[in-house]
C-alpha cells in the first residue's frame, strides 16, 4: 500500500478534527443557550477524540510520533487541516453554518471510508458513525430552525453561508495522492467526496429557504492541505499548546 498517501489522508482528517474541535470548544460557557453550549462542547470533545484516534493510527501503523506530540508539538506549516476549520468562531450564525458544511463532509468521508482497503481507518469509520450522526442531526436541526426564523436570522444565515462556502470547498483540496488512494481502494477521492457533499447539502439549503451560492463563481480556498494557513491558525496553536509548551515532558 502507498503509505505516504494514507498518512497524508490521516493527517488531513486528524488535523481537521483537532482544529475544529478546539475552535468549537470556545463556545463552552458562552453558548447562546445552555443546550447549545452543551452541544458544541460535547461535539468538540467527540472531534478531539476522533483526532486522537486518527493520530494513534499514524503512531501505531506508521511509526509517527505519539498522539500528544502530533497534536501539541508540530509547527503551523505541518498542519494539513483546511482553512475552514481554523477561522474564528465569529457569531453563532457562522459557527452553525460551518458546523453544517463541515460535518456533512466529514460524515460522508467516513461513510466512504467504511469500505476502505486500509483496515484501521475502515474500523474507525464504522465506530464513529453513530456519534457523527448526532452531530449532523444537530447541524440540520439548527441550520433549518435559524434559516426559517425571522428575516434578520435568514439574512444572517445567508451571508454566513456565502462567506463560508469557498472555505468549505477547500475541504476537498486534492492531494498529490488522489490516484493512488482511488486505485488502491483506500479512499474514493476528494473530487468524489465533493460531488456527494454537494448532492447532500444542496436540497437541505433549499429546504431551509436559503440560496446556494453559484458554484461556477465560488472559488475554493485551497492551501491548508499543503500547510499554507490563514492568519488565524498560529494564534490558535499558540493558545492550544500554551500549557504543554511550559514543560513538554510533564507527566499528566
Amino acid at each position, binding site marked *: 500500500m502507498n503509505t505516504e498517501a494514507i498518512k497524508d489522508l490521516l493527517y488531513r482528517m486528524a488535523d481537521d478534527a483537532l482544529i475544529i474541535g478546539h475552535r468549537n470548544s470556545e463556545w463552552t460557557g458562552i453558548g447562546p443557550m445552555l443546550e447549545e453550549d452543551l452541544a458544541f462542547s460535547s461535539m468538540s470533545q*467527540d472531534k478531539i477524540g476522533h483526532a486522537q484516534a486518527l493520530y494513534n493510527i499514524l503512531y501505531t501503523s506508521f511509526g509517527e510520533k505519539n498522539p500528544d506530540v502530533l497534536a501539541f508539538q508540530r509547527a503551523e506549516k505541518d498542519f494539513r487541516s483546511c482553512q475552514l476549520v481554523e477561522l474564528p468562531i465569529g457569531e453563532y450564525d457562522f459557527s452553525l453554518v460551518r458546523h453544517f458544511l463541515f460535518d456533512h463532509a466529514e460524515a460522508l468521508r467516513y461513510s466512504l471510508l467504511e469500505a476502505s482497503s486500509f483496515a484501521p481507518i475502515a474500523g474507525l469509520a464504522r*465506530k464513529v458513525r*453513530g*456519534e457523527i450522526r448526532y452531530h449532523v442531526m444537530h447541524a440540520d436541526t439548527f441550520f433549518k430552525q435559524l434559516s426559517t426564523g425571522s428575516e434578520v436570522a435568514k439574512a444572517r444565515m445567508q451571508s454566513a453561508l456565502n462567506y463560508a462556502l469557498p472555505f468549505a470547498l477547500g475541504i476537498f483540496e486534492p492531494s498529490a495522492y488522489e490516484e493512488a488512494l482511488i486505485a488502491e481502494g483506500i479512499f474514493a477521492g476528494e473530487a468524489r467526496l465533493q460531488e456527494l457533499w454537494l448532492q447532500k447539502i444542496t436540497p437541505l439549503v433549499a429546504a431551509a429557504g436559503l440560496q446556494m451560492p453559484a458554484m461556477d463563481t465560488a472559488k475554493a480556498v485551497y492551501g491548508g492541505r499543503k500547510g499554507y494557513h490563514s492568519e488565524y491558525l498560529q494564534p490558535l496553536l499558540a493558545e492550544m499548546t500554551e500549557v504543554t509548551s511550559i514543560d513538554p515532558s510533564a507527566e499528566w
Partner: protein
Amino acid sequence: MQGTSTITTADIWAALESVKDPEIPVLSVVDMGIVTAVSHQEGSDAATVTMTPTFVGCPAIDMMKKDIYHAVKNLGLASVEVLVDMDTVWSSDRMSADAKARLEKFGIAPPPVADGELTAEMLDRVRCPHCGSTDTTLRSTFGSTLCRAIRFCFSCKQGFEQFKPL
C-alpha cells in the same frame, strides 16, 4: 515462558464485574459491553483483556483501563495486558436488559434498541425514570457526558437524563 496459576477465566470475568463505569457507578464495564474479550488459557498466569470505548472521545477510557488492569492483576496473575480496541463498534444494544433496568433505577432513562439506526421515534416516548410517564420530550441531544441526552417530563415536571441510543 508463562507460569501457571489456579485462577480461572471465570475468575477474571468476575473481577471485571467489580470494575464500574466511573460515570455510571451502578454498571460494570461488563454490563456496559465495554469489555470485548478476555484472552486467558486456563491455568496460565497471564491474561489479556480487550476493551472498546463507548464514544471514541470518552474521557473515562484511561481510568477504566487502569481499573481493569488492577482488578485483574489483584487476582494474583503475573502478567496482565489491557488493550483498547478501536475496531469494535460499540452500540448501546450491547447493554444487557438487566443493565438497562439498573440504569433506569439509577435515574437515567435507558437507551431503546437502536439496531444501528437512529430514528425520530426513538427520541420520542421515552419513559421518565422518576415517575414512569412517557409524556416526555427531548430538550437536548447533548448532555452532561458524551453518552447522555437531556429530556423533560411533562407529568412530574422534572428534567432527566437519557442514555443515548447509539
